[in-house]
C-alpha cells in the first residue's frame, strides 16, 4: 500500500501464492466469525453452527429490527431509531472534539518551540499507560459531583460522555496530526508569518486547509472511536446506544438471536463503509499515526 518498497521485481510467483494461502489460513476464524454473523442476520435461525439446513433466507429480522420489535413474542418495543440517533450523537460529538483538539495540539507539537515540548510529547505517550478502568472510576466520581438537576441529567450525560471519551483519543489524534503537519514545507508558513499574520490565523487559514487528508483521517477515527465505544457509554450515558442495547439483549430470555445479529450487522456498517471508501486512507494514517 505504501509507496515504498515492494518486493516485486524478482519474487517468484510460487512464493507469493504460498504466502497468500498461509495468510488466508490464519484468517479463517476471522472470516468465519464475521461472515456467519452477517449471514445469520438474513436467516431464520442462527447459522453459527455451520449447518446449511439452518440457513433459511429471510429479511424478517431486518424488518423487525427497524420496527423496533426486538422480541418476536410479547409486546417489547423500542424505538430503534432513537438508539441509533444516540449512538450517532456520541460518535459525531467525539469526532468533532477530537479533530479540533488534535489538530491544535498536533500543530503546536509539530511546529512550535516551547519549553517542555519534549516532556509534553513523552507525557502523551505515557497517557497510554494510564489504566482506563481506574480513570473511569475517578471520572465517575467527578460525574456524580457535578450532577445537575433531574431535568438536565440526560443532556449532561451526553455532554459528559462525549468530552470524556474524546479525551482518551487526544494522544492518538495529536501524533496523527503531527505526522501530517510535519510534511508541510516550512516556506509556506514563513511567507505568511513574515507578512504579519498571527500564528493562530496562519494555522486556521493556511496550514489547516493543507492537511485536509489528516483532518479527514482524525475525524474518521474519532467517529469510529465514539461509535464503537461501550464502556464509557454504559457507565455515563443515561440513554441507550446500539452497544448497550446489544449488551442487554444477547442473553435476555426474550431475545430472538437472528434479530440481534441483524442489529450487530447494522452496528458494523460504518466500519465496513469506511473500509470500502477509505482503504488507502485507513492504512496510510495507521502508519503515520504510530511513527515518532
Amino acid at each position: 500500500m505504501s509507496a515504498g518498497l515492494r518486493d516485486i521485481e524478482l519474487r517468484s510467483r510460487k512464493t507469493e501464492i504460498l504466502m497468500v494461502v498461509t495468510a488466508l489460513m490464519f484468517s479463517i476464524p476471522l472470516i468465519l466469525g464475521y461472515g456467519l454473523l452477517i449471514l445469520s442476520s438474513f436467516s431464520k435461525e442462527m447459522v453459527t453452527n455451520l449447518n446449511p439446513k439452518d440457513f433459511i433466507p429471510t429479511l424478517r429480522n431486518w424488518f423487525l429490527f427497524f420496527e423496533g420489535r426486538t422480541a418476536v413474542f410479547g409486546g417489547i418495543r423500542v424505538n430503534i431509531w432513537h438508539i441509533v440517533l444516540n449512538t450517532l450523537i456520541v460518535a459525531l460529538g467525539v469526532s468533532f472534539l477530537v479533530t479540533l483538539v488534535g489538530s491544535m495540539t498536533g500543530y503546536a507539537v509539530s511546529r512550535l518551540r516551547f519549553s517542555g515540548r519534549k516532556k509534553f510529547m513523552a507525557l502523551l505517550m505515557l497517557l497510554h499507560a494510564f489504566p482506563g478502568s481506574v480513570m473511569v472510576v475517578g471520572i465517575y466520581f467527578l460525574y456524580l459531583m457535578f450532577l445537575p438537576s433531574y431535568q438536565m441529567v440526560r443532556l449532561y450525560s451526553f455532554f459528559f460522555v462525549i468530552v470524556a471519551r474524546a479525551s482518551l483519543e487526544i494522544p492518538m489524534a495529536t501524533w496523527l496530526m503531527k505526522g501530517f503537519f510535519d510534511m508541510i514545507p516550512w516556506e509556506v508558513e514563513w511567507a505568511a508569518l513574515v507578512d504579519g499574520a498571527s500564528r493562530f490565523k496562519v494555522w486556521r487559514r493556511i496550514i489547516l486547509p493543507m492537511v485536509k487528508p489528516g483532518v479527514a483521517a482524525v475525524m474518521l477515527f474519532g467517529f469510529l472511536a465514539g461509535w464503537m465505544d461501550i464502556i464509557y457509554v454504559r457507565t455515563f450515558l443515561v440513554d441507550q446506544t446500539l452497544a448497550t442495547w446489544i449488551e442487554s439483549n444477547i442473553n435476555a430470555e426474550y431475545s430472538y438471536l437472528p434479530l440481534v445479529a441483524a442489529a450487530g450487522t447494522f452496528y458494523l456498517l460504518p466500519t465496513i463503509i469506511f473500509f470500502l471508501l477509505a482503504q488507502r486512507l485507513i492504512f496510510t494514517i495507521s502508519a503515520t499515526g504510530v511513527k515518532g
Partner: protein
Amino acid sequence: MTREVLGVAKTNLFSKIKDFIRSDAFIFLFPAIILIIVFFFIPIVVSVYMSFTPLKNWNIARYIHEFVGFENYWRFFYMVTHDPTVRPIFITTIVFILVTLAINVLGGLGLAIATFFMGEREAGSTQLLWLLPRMTPIAVYSMIWYYFFHGSAIGTLNSILMSLGIIHKPIDWGQSIIPWGPWLIIIFVNGLVGVSYGMIVFTSAISNIPKELVIAARVDGASNWSITKNILIPLLKWHIVYVTTWQMLSLLTTYDHIFLLVEWGLVNRYYGTTWALYIYNMAFTAAEKDLGLAAAAGVILVIVGAILGLLALKILGFDKMVKEPRGDI
C-alpha cells in the same frame, strides 16, 4: 546557599510558566491541557483519595469524609494472597499479558513479512482484513466470538470439531476447562485486536528499508528466508522493541474487549478477568460496589503502569526520537 539555589530554581520555573502562557504554543495547547488535567490527572488523584476511604456503592455523601488509612491496601494484599476468587485474577493477568504479547508481536511481524512478499493488491486486502478487529464496534466483536466459542452446539468451534468427529458433545470452553479454556478465549480475542498494531508498525518500517538491499540480495540468489533473517529482522530490531513495550502497556490496561465476554458468561468470571477488568467490575457491576478496594487495586495498577511506561521510554531512547522543530521563528 541551598536556599539561594532553591530560590533561583523557583523563579526559573515560575518565569518558565509565565513565558509559556505568553507564547503562541499556549493557545494551541490550552484545550488539550485542560482535557488531560480533567480526564487523566484529576481522576487518578480522586482514585488515590478514594482508596483511603471506605466508600461503598457510590454513596459519596455518607463515606467520603471517613478515613481508613491503608486498610484497603492491606485488604487487597490479603485478598490477593488468600482469597481464591481474587488470586486467579493475578495469574490470569500475567498469563494473559505474556501469551497475548507473544502472539501480537510475532503475529504482527509474520503478517508484515508475509505481505511484503505478496503483490500489492493481495497485501492490501490482507492488511485491511487484519485491521478489521480493531475498528469493529466492541459489542459486535464480542458477539462474534461469543457465538464462535459458545458452549452449546450453536458454537462454531464446537460444531466444527463435532463434524470432524474430534469431540462427540459440545464443550463449554470458557466455563468447564479451567483455567486454559477461558485463558485461550481471552487471549485469542485480544490477540486478534493487537496483531494489527505490530503489523502496521512493521509494514511501515519495512517500506522504509532501502530497496537496493533486497534487490542485491535477490540478484545474489538469496532465498526468502535468508532475506527475512538477514535483512528484514535485523533492520526491524528497534521496532520490535517498540511494539513489544507499547503492546505490553496496552495489555496491562485493556479490559473492554473482555468485559462483555465475562458479563455474558462466555468465560469464567475468575479465570477470564484481568486486573484492569476486576477494578471496573468491582466499581460498577458488583452487587456490593467496594470502591475503596477498587481504588486501592487501581492505584497499584497505575504505579505498575507508570513504572513500566517510564522504563519503556528509557529503553526506546525517547530523547533521541524527538527532534526539535526546524527553523521556527
